[in-house]
């Protein structure tokens, strides 16, 4: 243990030292002022303008000519409607992607679970597939898939499904490996058919763990899919990209509040379902 801790300390020192030496650890020219300005923008989320906005904001050119009049309240109200639709898209991408990943991973989990003793080459192949897809980020899958199936939620669903397949496969096969084999043998010993062994012994034992893992990864994917819009898969990520590239921190603040509410409420719900299952 001692030398591992030492090696870790050395690695940290090396990372920090080399960055300082290359002069890459600067904080910019006036970080404090920038921080205060950004924080101020964030503190005024754009949705407040639905009530507080200027109903007749006048845009004038330099010589004072009136270019147009904008109702800020209407503009932000429309933005909120767009935001609702984007949230719905994100939720749909995450839900379908998670289900796709769970379904894809099931056969692979069955092959990799050690106590099921699948043929070795197949087990290795399945394990290889799971390891590869788990190590490729959703965004990378998304970028590749956008090139294949085009822009839109399809790419997002496939990207989420492919990446989370790896995580599902690992969790599912662990659930299968923790099965009580003696109880399964006891059910077989009364002359139960394979289907009955599955229905009466295997399924009741793994189902709660499967559902629990599913809720967990589903929740994770909701967070993950908010970023997918960046690569053109639609949803909240698109609004995040838009807001950041236009430096509209107020709007970004609104979007992030929605993300937090979405994730937190899903978390509360899934926690309750998990508690009821155990």
């Amino acid at each position, binding site marked *: 243990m001692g030398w591992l801790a030492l090696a870790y300390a050395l690695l940290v020192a090396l990372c920090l030292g080399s960055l300082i030496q290359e002069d890459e650890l600067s904080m910019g020219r006036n970080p404090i002022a920038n921080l205060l300005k950004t924080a101020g923008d964030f503190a005024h989320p754009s949705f407040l303008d639905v009530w507080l906005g200027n109903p007749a904001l006048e845009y004038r050119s330099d010589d004072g000519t009136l270019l147009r009049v904008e109702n800020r309240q209407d503009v932000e109200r429309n933005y909120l409607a767009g935001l609702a639709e984007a949230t719905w898209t994100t939720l749909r991408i995450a839900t379908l992607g998670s289900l796709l990943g769970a379904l894809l991973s099931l056969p692979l989990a069955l092959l990799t679970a050690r*106590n*099921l*003793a699948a043929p070795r080459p197949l087990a290795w192949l399945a394990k290889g597939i799971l390891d590869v897809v788990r190590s490729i980020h959703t965004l990378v899958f998304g970028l590749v898939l956008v090139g294949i199936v085009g822009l839109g939620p399809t790419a997002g669903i496939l990207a989420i499904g492919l990446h989370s397949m790896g995580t599902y496969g690992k969790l599912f096969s662990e659930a299968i490996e923790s*099965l*009580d*084999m*003696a*109880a*399964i*043998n*006891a*059910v*077989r*010993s*009364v*002359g*139960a*058919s*394979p*289907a*009955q*062994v*599955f*229905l*009466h*012994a*295997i399924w*009741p*034992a793994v189902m*709660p763990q499967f559902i629990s893992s599913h809720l967990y990864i589903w929740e994770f994917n909701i967070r993950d899919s908010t970023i997918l819009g960046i690569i053109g898969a639609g949803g909240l990520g698109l609004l995040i990209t838009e807001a950041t590239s236009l430096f509209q921190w107020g709007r970004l603040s609104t979007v992030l509040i929605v993300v937090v509410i979405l994730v937190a409420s899903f978390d509360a719900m899934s926690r309750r379902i998990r508690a009821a299952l155990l």
Partner: protein
Amino acid sequence: MSAPVIAMDSLVCAAGGRTLLDIAELRVQPGERVGVVGPNGAGKSTLLRALSGFMPPMHGQLEVLGHLLQTALTAAELRQLRQEVGQVLQGLHLVARLSALDNVLIGCLGRISGWRHWSRRFTATENAQARAALQAVGLQTRAATRADQLSGGERQKVAMARLLMQQPRLILADEPTAALDPAAAIEVCQLLAQAARGATLITVVHNPALLAGLADRVIGLRAGRIAFDLPVAEVSEALLAELYRPASEQQNQRQPEALATPPNHSIEVCS
């Protein structure tokens, strides 16, 4: 006289280069109650596994309830054999997440055929039978309790109720009282004797005090061979002491055996 329930002739079971069981001849008639005794590693659990068809290929002749076990059975034959052979194993092998009643209902799975394989529904008759079986072991009030919430003694009783539900012709019990306190052990033995009424009962026993209640005939196993085969009345303490006397000098090594699980831990869903 009817055909024997068990007929063994020059049976040899070997695994990993070691002979586990080597029995020249053994006949068990219907309705007999046989106790099997012997030190650890004598082949008691192997004998039960061989009889239940959970055993790898072997040499010699083994006929159980009319099924020839030395050849590979078809899946259907194996199912039928297992339905007729009730097993009470060392552990308390209930499905943890199912209720006591559902665990008892598992006993009749072998009798279910056709499309009902694929459903988890049971008929009203089966449900009534299961409730009656739970009542017989005194657990009718615990029917809806999940198996992992039951105490050790209650679980073993549920296993007995499952056995009652199964109505097997041959019962193989491996240390049915291993994990129980003396009072519960006696109660479970009585239930086992009750479940075995009209069936053939073969019990692996470590506690000689329980022999009389569970067996009329006692077989002593040592190093895979039959050391003695006597009516229970003729089994003396000296005989048992001689049987358990270790080859080396470790007199008091009488741990409960830990070989209930077969060496192969895979789920043989297709067998």
